[in-house]
């Protein structure tokens, strides 16, 4: 299908973009999720503000052991980053499983995060890395733990005028991590995905088990006592996964547990 009619504006700078968002515009970056949703008319925004030319939002850098990934960084750039390949290769792994080469040439980290689909690849990894979302508007800026950005199915917690500027996380020497997913076919949209990162503490993020990506806090806490208790904590959670033709809720929870166990075993052993 084709999208319903909408207005389009090309943002000249961040303030311009922010003001458009304050008027109700939705930011357009790579468009790989947004345009697809608009074509099926699942989304019918009235105004799009194209932030694709905002160079400041691109780039990967490190300062004082804190990595910053600009929101407009494309997945293909994330995968090629020597810095990320060295420090957090499982983040690159998750990115490499997004869609396909064409989609990764356009899709951005910010888009993958802000579209807030529960099955997105990057959120579980970023959650497990204790990442922070750096948010800005023409008025102000703030930082929140990335898991707080997800409010519901394809609903993010940005308020009018706000744009995700970057994600940041600390790197710890000797840090290990794992990203695992189960999709109908390789490189498809996952049914469920899990990421575990060991740093100063162990972070656990999952997708596909609720209407948005989750941090499994109780699992993280129980890990002090070992993998067994951690899995019991998982069993005690009340998940409400999406259901579709590929699988029902019961299957996703079951496999989520298997992937979690395998990821924990990989990281902790």
């Amino acid at each position, binding site marked *: 299908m084709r999208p319903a009619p909408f207005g389009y504006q090309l943002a000249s700078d961040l303030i311009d973009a922010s003001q458009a968002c304050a008027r109700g515009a939705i930011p*357009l970056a790579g468009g790989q999720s947004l*345009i697809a949703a608009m074509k099926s008319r699942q989304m019918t925004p009235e105004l799009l503000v194209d932030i694709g030319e905002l160079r400041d939002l691109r780039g990967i850098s490190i300062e004082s052991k804190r990595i910053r990934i600009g929101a407009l960084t494309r997945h293909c750039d994330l995968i090629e980053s020597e810095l990320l390949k060295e420090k957090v290769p499982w983040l690159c792994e998750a990115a490499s499983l997004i*869609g396909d080469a064409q989609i990764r040439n356009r899709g951005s980290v910010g888009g993958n995060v802000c579209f807030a689909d529960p099955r997105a690849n990057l959120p579980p990894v970023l959650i497990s890395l204790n990442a922070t979302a750096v948010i800005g508007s023409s008025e102000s800026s703030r930082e929140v733990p990335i898991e707080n950005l997800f409010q519901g199915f394809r609903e993010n917690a940005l308020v009018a005028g706000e744009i995700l500027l970057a994600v940041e996380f600390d790197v710890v020497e000797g840090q290990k991590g794992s990203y695992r997913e189960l999709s109908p076919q390789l*490189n498809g949209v996952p049914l469920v995905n899990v990421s575990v990162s060991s740093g100063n503490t162990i972070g656990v993020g999952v997708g596909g088990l609720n209407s948005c990506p989750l941090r499994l806090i109780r699992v993280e806490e129980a890990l002090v006592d070992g993998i067994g208790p951690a899995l019991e904590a998982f069993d005690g959670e009340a998940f409400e996964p999406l259901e579709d033709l590929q699988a029902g809720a019961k299957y996703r929870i079951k496999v989520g547990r298997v992937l979690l166990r395998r990821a924990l075993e990989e990281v902790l052993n």
Partner: protein
Amino acid sequence: MQFRLNGGDRKCKVSPRTLLVDVLRDECGTTSVHIGCDEGICGACTIFLDGESVKSCLVLAVQAEGKDVETLEGTGSGKELDVVQQAFGEEFALQCGFCTPGMVVSARALLKNNPNPTDQEIRAAMVGNLCRCTGYQNILKAVKKSAEKLQSG
């Protein structure tokens, strides 16, 4: 909007919701760019945008403003087939030909970035292009042959 298509300048009247694939097919006559789905999965619409392979059904025409678009119609000089196209023919990597333009673009994109790909790298790089006729086996052979030919110069 204005953009460059296969080396020539184009000016098209579009609305914000016009997709790049529609402008290319309906306004510019580059019908090698095909539509095989509505959700950006099949890859039959794959083209080069500023030298990178993208799915033109997931790009608004306005997003191509000032950019360089290359489709299969812009191949080579005159009527010559390039290495990739020749290899596709030699390895019988096409049957109905509907997915072929997108496949060729993706193959070219891969070989630009990775001139010596392994089988698995080829499969992963081209997973965004679906084919219903060939079962992919001969396409893999064609891309490998292209890589060998390009390497040996």
